């Protein structure tokens, strides 16, 4: 069972995607862009959960990460944007 297959390559690439987009979400000043990056993080992590044979966790991650948190982030951005605008 110790054979390295194409799938290990896939795992590595997906981990790379997680790291890149997590850094992007932390670094970006534009809040919409950061929201998109956070969505990509949850997408890639959901696939990794599938690879770890945990479909229920993957489904939850998909529901929370892609659906709920994106919408909540958008609502939060809208509520706070005006304050930031006055600040500048």
């Amino acid at each position, binding site marked *: 069972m110790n054979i390295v297959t194409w799938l290990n390559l896939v795992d590595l690439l997906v981990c790379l995607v997680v790291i890149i987009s997590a850094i992007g979400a932390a670094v970006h000043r534009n809040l*919409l862009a950061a929201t998109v990056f956070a969505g990509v993080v949850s997408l890639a992590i959901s696939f990794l959960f599938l690879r770890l044979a945990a479909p229920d966790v993957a489904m939850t991650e998909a529901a929370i990460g892609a659906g709920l948190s994106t919408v909540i982030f958008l609502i939060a951005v809208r509520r706070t944007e005006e304050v930031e605008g006055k600040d500048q």
Partner: protein
Amino acid sequence: MANLLLELALAIGAAGTLLAVVRLVKGPRAASRAVALDVLTLITMPMMAAYGLYAGRQIYLDVALVYGILSFLGVTALARYADRGV
């Protein structure tokens, strides 16, 4: 043989993911990044389904379907936000 082809398909999909991430990082504005997110979802959904067949568990298809529905909602919410604010 068929398994090898499936693995190759998964690897190609992962390479596509990496290309889409290039656009995600470069994308001049949030709108381009949203397109990249859309494409990433559309690549990951069939890859999840293909991996479900590879692992022989039907519930992985449900994960792909749930992911597709929710990501569609997320992208539409993003577009609506840019249009007139959630």
